[in-house]
C-alpha cells in the first residue's frame, strides 16, 4: 500500500484566549496531493506553521512523524533540511534580486562563504526548466509577473531538495491560464514522486487535482475525503466546511426598522496601487440603508477591504472612479478627513497595524479621530477627554483598570472595543466594520454583535465585512457577496444560507473563465 510520509498526531495549539488547533490529526501519504480546506480562521495556516517549525516544538502539544521518525522542529531551517518546504501566500521573494539569487537565498552555492555564481545560475536555469518558467535566472524578480514569481518560488523550493511541498493559496493571485499551468505542474511533480499539501479556497481546483481532502473547521479536523472512496464534489466539500449550528452564538437581529437609502455607490472601480493594470474593485454598485446591517461576504482577497477603504477618503488604491451618493447627494471624498466630516467611519480589519496606537492609552486612542470634540482653540480639555473615554469604556464594557492603561496591554477583544469606541466617538452615520470579530474570543464576539445591533437600532448604518459566514448570516439584514473585485450576488438576510452564499462565491469564480484581460 501507499507509504505514510507525514503524520501529525493530536496537535493542539493555543494562542492567548483562542484555541487555534484542537487535537488535529493529519496523515499524508507519499506522492499524493493532499488538499487542506476550511474557512478563514479554521486553522489551516496555523497547522502548516506548526509543521514547518514557525511555531517551534514545545509551543504546541502533539507529535509530528515524518518519514517514519519523530520530528521536533525548532526553526524553519530544521524542517527545510528534511525537505519540508512551505510557500506562503505572500511570496517571500526580494524584488531587487535576480531569480537565481532569490532561489538560492540562504542556500547559496559555493564554498566557505564565497558564492559560485556560475554554479548558481547553471542550477537555477535547470530548475527553471523543470517548473517551466521561460525566463533567464538573471532577470530581476520585480520585472516578472505574479504568475511567474509563483513559479520562481516553486523553483526555489525545489532548490532546497523539497520532498514535501506546502503551497498556501498558490493560485489566489493568478489568472485562469496561470492557475491551470501551476496545477498541471503539481500533477507532473506528483508523477515524479513529490508530495504536496495544497491549501486553497478554490474548490474546483481542489476537486480536480487533489487525491485526498482534509476539511478543517474551528481548529478541528471534520473529515478527510479520499478520491478513491468518496465521490468528491464541490457541494460535498462545502457541506463539510460550513456544517455548523448557529445555536446561540449570536444575539439575533432584534427589532430594528430598516429605513430609506442613505448611501449609494455606482460603478466603483479601483486599481492596485503598485500594479496599476490590476483591477482590485471592478465596477461595483450597491446601496446602504438607514438602520441596516449590511453584510459583505467573500473570501480573503475578494476586494472587500479595498472597496471600502477606497470609499473612505481614497485611503486605498489608484485611479479610483465611480460615484458616491450620501443622502441622495453626490459627494467626493478625497481624504479621510472628508470622509469623517461626511459621517463615515471605517473600522479596520488590522487593528494593530492600521487601527490603534498600541503604546498610547485608551483615552488617547478613543479621541484620536475626533480630537476637535474635546478641545478648544487647539488645546485639549483633559476633563472632557477623560469624560469621553470613560463614557465609552462603560458603554462598551471595556475591561481595564482605567482609561490611562496602554492599549497594547489589553486583550484582543478589549482592543477591538477601544477601536469601536474611537470610531463611535467620531459620531458617524455609516460605520464600516471590517472583520470586527477577527481573532477575539467568543464572549467578546457576542458583545460586539450586541453593539452592532444597538447601533442599527439607533438608526446608524452598519456595513459588516466578514469572512465568517455564520456571522454575516446571523447579523445582516441584507448581504452582498463579493468575488474577484465584483459583487456577484445580493441576498436578503432572512433567506440566505451558507450554501447559497458559498455557491455564489464559487459561481463567480467559475464565471472567471473567460477572464478579463
Amino acid at each position, binding site marked *: 500500500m501507499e507509504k505514510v510520509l507525514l503524520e501529525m498526531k493530536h496537535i493542539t495549539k493555543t494562542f492567548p484566549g483562542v484555541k487555534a488547533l484542537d487535537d488535529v490529526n493529519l496523515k499524508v501519504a507519499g506522492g499524493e496531493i493532499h488538499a487542506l480546506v476550511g474557512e478563514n480562521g479554521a486553522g489551516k495556516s496555523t497547522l502548516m506553521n506548526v509543521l514547518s517549525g514557525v511555531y517551534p516544538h514545545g509551543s504546541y502539544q502533539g507529535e509530528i512523524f515524518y518519514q517514519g521518525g519523530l520530528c521536533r522542529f525548532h526553526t524553519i531551517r530544521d524542517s527545510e533540511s528534511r525537505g519540508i518546504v512551505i510557500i506562503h501566500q505572500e511570496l517571500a521573494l526580494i524584488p531587487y534580486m535576480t531569480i537565481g539569487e532569490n532561489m538560492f537565498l540562504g542556500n547559496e552555492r559555493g564554498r566557505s562563504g564565497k558564492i559560485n555564481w556560475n554554479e548558481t545560475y547553471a542550477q537555477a536555469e535547470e530548475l527553471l526548466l523543470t517548473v517551466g518558467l521561460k525566463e533567464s535566472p538573471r532577470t530581476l524578480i520585480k520585472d516578472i509577473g505574479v504568475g511567474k514569481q509563483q513559479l520562481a518560488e516553486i523553483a526555489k523550493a525545489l532548490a532546497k531538495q523539497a520532498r514535501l511541498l506546502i503551497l498556501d493559496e498558490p493560485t489566489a493571485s493568478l489568472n485562469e491560464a496561470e492557475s491551470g499551468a501551476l496545477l498541471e505542474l503539481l500533477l507532473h511533480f506528483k508523477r515524479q514522486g513529490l508530495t504536496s499539501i495544497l491549501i486553497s479556497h478554490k474548490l474546483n481546483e481542489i476537486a480536480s487535482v487533489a487525491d485526498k481532502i482534509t476539511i478543517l473547521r474551528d481548529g478541528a479536523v471534520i473529515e478527510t475525503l479520499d478520491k478513491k472512496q468518496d465521490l468528491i464534489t464541490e457541494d460535498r466539500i462545502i457541506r463539510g466546511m460550513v456544517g455548523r449550528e448557529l445555536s446561540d452564538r449570536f444575539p439575533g437581529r432584534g427589532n430594528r426598522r430598516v429605513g430609506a437609502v442613505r448611501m449609494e455607490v455606482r460603478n466603483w472601480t479601483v486599481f492596485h496601487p503598485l500594479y496599476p493594470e490590476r483591477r482590485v474593485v471592478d465596477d461595483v454598485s450597491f446601496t446602504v440603508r438607514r438602520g441596516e446591517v449590511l453584510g459583505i461576504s467573500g473570501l480573503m482577497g475578494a476586494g472587500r477591504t479595498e472597496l471600502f477603504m477606497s470609499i473612505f477618503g481614497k*485611503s486605498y488604491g489608484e485611479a479610483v472612479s465611480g460615484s458616491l451618493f450620501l443622502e441622495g447627494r453626490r459627494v467626493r471624498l478625497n481624504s*479621510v478627513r472628508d470622509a469623517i466630516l461626511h459621517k463615515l467611519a*471605517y473600522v479596520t480589519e488590522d487593528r494593530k497595524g*492600521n487601527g490603534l496606537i498600541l503604546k498610547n492609552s485608551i483615552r*488617547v486612542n478613543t479621541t484620536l479621530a475626533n480630537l476637535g470634540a474635546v478641545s478648544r482653540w*487647539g488645546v485639549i480639555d*483633559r*476633563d472632557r477627554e477623560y469624560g469621553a473615554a470613560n463614557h465609552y469604556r462603560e458603554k462598551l464594557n471595556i475591561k481595564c483598570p482605567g482609561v490611562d492603561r496602554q492599549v497594547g496591554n489589553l486583550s484582543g477583544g478589549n482592543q477591538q472595543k477601544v477601536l469601536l469606541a474611537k470610531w463611535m466617538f467620531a459620531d458617524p452615520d455609516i460605520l464600516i466594520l471590517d472583520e470586527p470579530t477577527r481573532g477575539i474570543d467568543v464572549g467578546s464576539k457576542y458583545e460586539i454583535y450586541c453593539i452592532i445591533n444597538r447601533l442599527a437600532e439607533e438608526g446608524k448604518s452598519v456595513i459588516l465585512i466578514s469572512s465568517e459566514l455564520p456571522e454575516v448570516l446571523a447579523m445582516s439584514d441584507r448581504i452582498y457577496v463579493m468575488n474577484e473585485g465584483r459583487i456577484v450576488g445580493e441576498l436578503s438576510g432572512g433567506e440566505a444560507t451558507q450554501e447559497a452564499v458559498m455557491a455564489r462565491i464559487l459561481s463567480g469564480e467559475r464565471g472567471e473563465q473567460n477572464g478579463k484581460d
Partner: protein
Amino acid sequence: MEKTKNTDIIKKYTMIIVLALILSFFAWRTGGAILLPMNVSSLISQNAYVFILATGMLLCILTGGNIDLSVGSVVCFVGAIGAVLMVNFKVNMYLAILAMALVGTLIGAWQGFWIAFVRIPPFIVTLAGMLVFRGLSNVVLNGMTVSIKEQEAFVNLFGGGANCYIPDFFGNGTLNLTCLLAGFLAVGIFLFLQIRSCRERRRKGYDRSGAFGFALKLSVVSAAVLAFTWRLSQHKGIPTVLIWVLIVVLIYGYLTSNTRVGRYFYAVGGNEKATRLSGINTNRVYFLAYLNMGFLAALAGMVTIARMTSAQPTYGQSYEMDAIGACFIGGASAYGGIGTVPGVIIGAVLMGVINLGMSLMGVDQNMQKVVKGLVLLAAVIFDVVSKRGGKLIAGN
C-alpha cells in the same frame, strides 16, 4: 496590579534617580566643586543651546525616531547671517533677529518639504543640510571670524558677554534677591497648578493614585528648584539665557502635552497608518516637526553667537549630537511616539553634568567623549530592552 504600578513609577523616574546618583558621584569626586554657585550657573549658560535644540529635536524624534543632523550647521549659518547683517551691513538689531528667525524657519521648511511630502529619508536630507549649511556659513563669513562685541544690546539680550545676568532689583550685594524671589514664585505657581489639577482629577474620579507619590513628586521638584535658585542667587543671579530656555521649555512642554498638534506628533510616531486613517494629515505633521526645528536652530544660533560674541564658520559642530543624545537619554523612544519635554530637559542636564563633572575632575577631553558615547548607548539599550520585557537578545 499593585506590583506593575511600582515598577511603572521606577521606570518613569529612572532618569531622575540616575541624575541624582551621577550628581552625588561628581559631588564626591570633585569635593563638592560641581555644586558651587559658579558651576551651577555655568551649567545653564554652557548648555543653553542643548536645551533649545533638544526640545526641537524631540518633535522630530517623536514622529518616528527621525533625527535632524543639520542643526549644528544651521546654528552656525544663522549666526553667521545675523553677525554679518549687524556688523557689515549695519542692520538694525531687531531686523537682524527677524531675519535670522526667518532664515532658520525657511531652512526648516526646505528640509521639511523633502522629508514630509517627497518622503526622502530625514537622515539623507539633513545630512545634505549639514554639508550645505556648513559650507554656506563659510561663504557668508568668508572663512573668517566676525566679532559682535560692539553689538552690546544683542549680546545682552541673548545672555552673552560680561553682563549676562538679570539685574538684581533689590541689590544688597551678596545674595541676589531677585533670583531667590523668582525661585519662590516659580515654586508657588507650580504647587498651585499641580494641586488644583490634582484636586480636579480626583473630584471627577479620573485619578486614584496614592497621595504619597504625589506629595513626594511635589516636594522633590520644589526642593530642586529652590536649591537651584539659591545657588544661582549666590553667584550673580539668573543667567539671561535661562529666560530663553524657560520660554522654549514651557511653550513646548505645553504644546506637546496639551494641544491637538502636540498629540499628533505622538500619534504619527506611534502608528502612522492608524493616524492617517484617523483623518490626520501626517505629511503636515512631519513638515511641522522640521519647520520648527529650523526655527529653534535659529534661536540657538542667536544664543550661540551672543555667548561667543562672534560668529565663526566652525560654530555649532556636533551640536546635533548633543541634542539627539539629550533626547534619547531623556527617555525619547528611538522608534518614535514616546518622549516628553521634561524628560529631554533631564537628559540634557544629565549630559551637562557629566561634561562639567569630568572637566572639573580633569578627565581628558577624549575620554569625556568615550564616556558620553557609552552613556547614550546605555540609555537606549535600557529603553529597548525594558520594552522587550527585559529580554536582552531579540527573537529572530
